[in-house]
């Protein structure tokens, strides 16, 4: 097991390097030079040239990449000019908020989605199946940002049950109950689509497994139906559900960008959108690399979980 984890960790290194290459390549596609973007169109040519030199932008691209990479390895992601603070500090602070939101949503969607999928498959074409299928269809068709807005209108504005937006109350907040009150709506809105996807795939994975010969063997042995569904079938179905949950983590993280905008959640997604709109290139670069690297590590954890479940994976 240890060897397997080590192997996966080693394999993650080229992936993360690849990510830095892709990000660097995309960013260097930007027309015009960042210095003009930073200084504004009224800057004098001398100032632009000086800033370019300070940023190392007069060097060849390959060299620029390695300088950038080397700096990142030392924890130096540069400074955000719009916020005037180190990119790394800003990203890590915002990323914490995003993790709380996305993590909650991911846990919600995994549990609810798998349960809904299993129930739906076990009662195929029954009332529960039809009801779940219908709700799931609505879930995957509604834009999460629209759902979020409607929730604000209903629960916050009309019923006044929950705060409209933000992560903590401005006055007197800051404790856990306050966080949870602020978290309910955005986490739910974020989880809805992912729950739908997980439920659908769990349902079809379960249907696929339930047709397998080994399920018939279990029944021929006289194993009870509850155990056939929730132990035999679900265990085998998890082999294909777990990777889906891994992929959903990416979707939840992506959806967080919208939800953070709608609910003014101080997360990394909103930061990135603002950075793009203000052309704060270093912040975009650093943010994307850090979040993507964390996502790679998360997927590695998913693979490890998979190998724990399925003895056939280990090599």
């Amino acid at each position, binding site marked *: 097991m240890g060897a397997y984890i080590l192997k996966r960790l080693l394999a993650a290194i080229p992936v993360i390097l690849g990510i830095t290459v892709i990000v660097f390549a995309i960013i260097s596609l930007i027309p015009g030079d960042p210095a003009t973007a930073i200084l504004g169109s009224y800057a004098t040519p001398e100032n632009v040239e000086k800033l370019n030199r300070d940023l190392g932008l007069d060097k060849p691209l390959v060299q620029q990449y390695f300088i950038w990479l080397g700096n990142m390895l030392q924890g130096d992601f540069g400074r955000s000019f719009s916020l005037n603070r180190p990119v790394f500090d800003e990203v890590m602070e915002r990323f914490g908020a995003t993790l709380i939101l996305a993590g909650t949503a991911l846990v919600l969607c995994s549990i609810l989605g798998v349960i809904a999928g299993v129930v739906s498959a076990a009662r195929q074409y029954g009332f529960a199946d039809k009801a779940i299928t219908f709700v799931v269809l609505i879930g995957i068709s509604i834009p999460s940002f629209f759902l979020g807005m*409607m929730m604000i209108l209903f629960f916050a504005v009309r019923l006044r049950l929950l705060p409209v937006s933000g992560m903590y109350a401005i006055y007197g907040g800051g404790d856990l109950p306050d966080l949870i009150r602020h978290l309910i709506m955005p986490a739910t809105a974020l989880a809805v689509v992912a729950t739908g996807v997980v439920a659908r795939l769990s349902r079809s994975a379960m*249907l696929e497994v339930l047709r397998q010969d080994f399920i018939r063997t279990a029944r021929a042995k006289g194993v009870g139906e509850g155990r056939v569904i929730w132990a035999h079938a679900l265990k085998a179905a998890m082999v294909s559900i777990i990777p889906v949950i891994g992929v959903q983590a990416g979707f939840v993280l992506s959806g967080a960008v919208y939800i953070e905008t709608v609910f003014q959640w101080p997360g990394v997604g909103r930061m990135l*959108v603002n950075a793009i*709109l203000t052309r704060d290139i270093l912040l975009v670069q650093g943010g994307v690399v850090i979040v993507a690297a964390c996502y790679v590590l998360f997927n590695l954890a998913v693979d490890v979980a998979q190998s724990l*479940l399925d003895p056939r994976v280990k090599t």
Partner: protein
Amino acid sequence: MTAAVSTAPTRKAASGTFLKLFARNRLAAAGGMILIAVVLIALLAPVLPLQDPYAQDLAQKFQRPFSPGHLLGTDHLGRDILSRLIWGTRLSLVVGVVASFGAAFFGSVIGIAAGYFGGRVDNWLMRAIDMLMAFPYILLALAIVAALGPGLVNALIAVSVVNIPFFARNIRGVTVSLAHKEFVDAARLTGQTDLGIMVSEILPNVLPVIVIAMSTTVGWMILETAGLSFLGLGSQPPVADLGSMLGEGRNALITDPHASIVPGLMIFVIVMSVNLVGDGIRDALDPRLRSGALTRPMARTVVDREAVPPAPEVPALLDVQDLRTEFRVGKRTLHALSGVTLQVRAGECVGLIGESGSGKSVTALSVMGLVASPPGVIAGGTVRYAGQEILGAPFARLRDLRGDRISYIFQDPLATLHPLYTIGDQIVEAICAHHPVPKAEARKRALDLLESVRMPNAASRIDNYPHQMSGGMRQRVGIAMALVNDPDLIIADEPTTALDVTVQAQILSLLDDLRRERNVAILFITHDFGVVAQLCDRIAVMYAGRIVETGPTGAILSDPAHPYTRRLIACVPELGGGRRELHAIPGLPPAVDDLPPGCAFAPRCDKAQPACRGGEIALDGFGETRAVRCLFPENADAEARA
């Protein structure tokens, strides 16, 4: 087991069924209608009497819906929402569709190339794709938009690129399985080039998958482009797609919610109808869904019979009477069994022999209600264990019998063992499902049994997973599991067909020893006369869902009464016969959804008379122990009866 089910539906022509299947799906049809309406309105936008979507009128801002002149009200600049909605819909639809075509095209090219060539090409292409997948997709989209600058076309490119990996991986998977199909090898041998094979052999087979993938992702792409516009990274003012309308409306969400609700609902309606249509297309195109194969079998076969035949005067251990099992697929009914009557006495080994589609496996599975249902239905007859009716018994009673009094050994031991449990756990479970014994004791029993089925190294093998064993060892596990509760009857469904001959010989002799030691009855299903001859006391020969002849093994093999039996035995080449012309039976077995009246073998039989094609022919007994379903049997004794 259900060869009849899997092959028969495909014989009907596939062309034209797509629309029929699609229309049958009411939800998909409803979605299709909504979508057509939306698309029509969007297409007609230039000729509809709409106001100028860009005409500002600040005095009229945030008019409520249904206000005069503005059916859906106005936005923050006093522009007519209805007009903007229709023009925005047009834009969103175009962008979503174009993005998905782009992703589908590039993804499919990469996927087909990687899957077909394999090796190094595959490795590098897929590494690149993995690299793209390593991003949470929106980060990549954001990075692309950051580079290209906000704008609708750039958002389109971003969404398209981000979705390429999805297509590439899907299409690659399908292509890999196709590239190893024999028809691709055959095409190579007929002189086709790689490009030719990809275009003319692979692509037509991959196309349905591409269409399915597209139809299930268009909705998603519309959502994503709307999302980027919502963030202000897509369409730029004054042009607006649905996403940017929603984004603009959000600023006045609390005071004037209609400016957000209208475009939001529109996105929802479009995506929902696209998804409904997409699901409909998938269901209609996917061959497995089409034949109804993707339904999960229930815990027991559905029983839908009118009357229960009375119990026989002399009950045996197992009495199958007039069993009729059908597969109801759509409007067609396949009569897999049309009245099977069979007895197995205690300690006896009965061989049930027949060709594929004859119904021998369906008979075996029907006994304990294990025929997959849907589509299987037991439409008549009865099964009695020790005089007690099983098919109508409560499920709890059936479950008590399964694996305890009557157990099964199946054909393919790799598929029939659970891949994620150790074999020890699987045997222990069979004990614990029926007897409340402590785990340790059950495990001890499992180990004893593994030793008695002559599992080499049983003590260490007990903690192995099925994939770590050879086929012969897995089948020993299957036998151990069947024996674990000392059953009265084992139903063995082609237990050695998947094995090599040398292993088959070992397994057969093991089964023979065990049944004599433990005095357990066996119902042995096979297509192989050699196996039956060596193992079984009695034989029942099946053809087209009926038993056509039964009797003691030796008598039937040396002196078959039914013409089918005689000719089938003649077809089997035997070792030691030297080089020769083999006997064949002309023609094919009848399709079980179109059985001829009278004797099903008549069309292939050289002795058939008009009477054979008339009515029902009974399975008549002759001699002491034999019976045959034939008007003109081969055997003098049988001819003399009646």
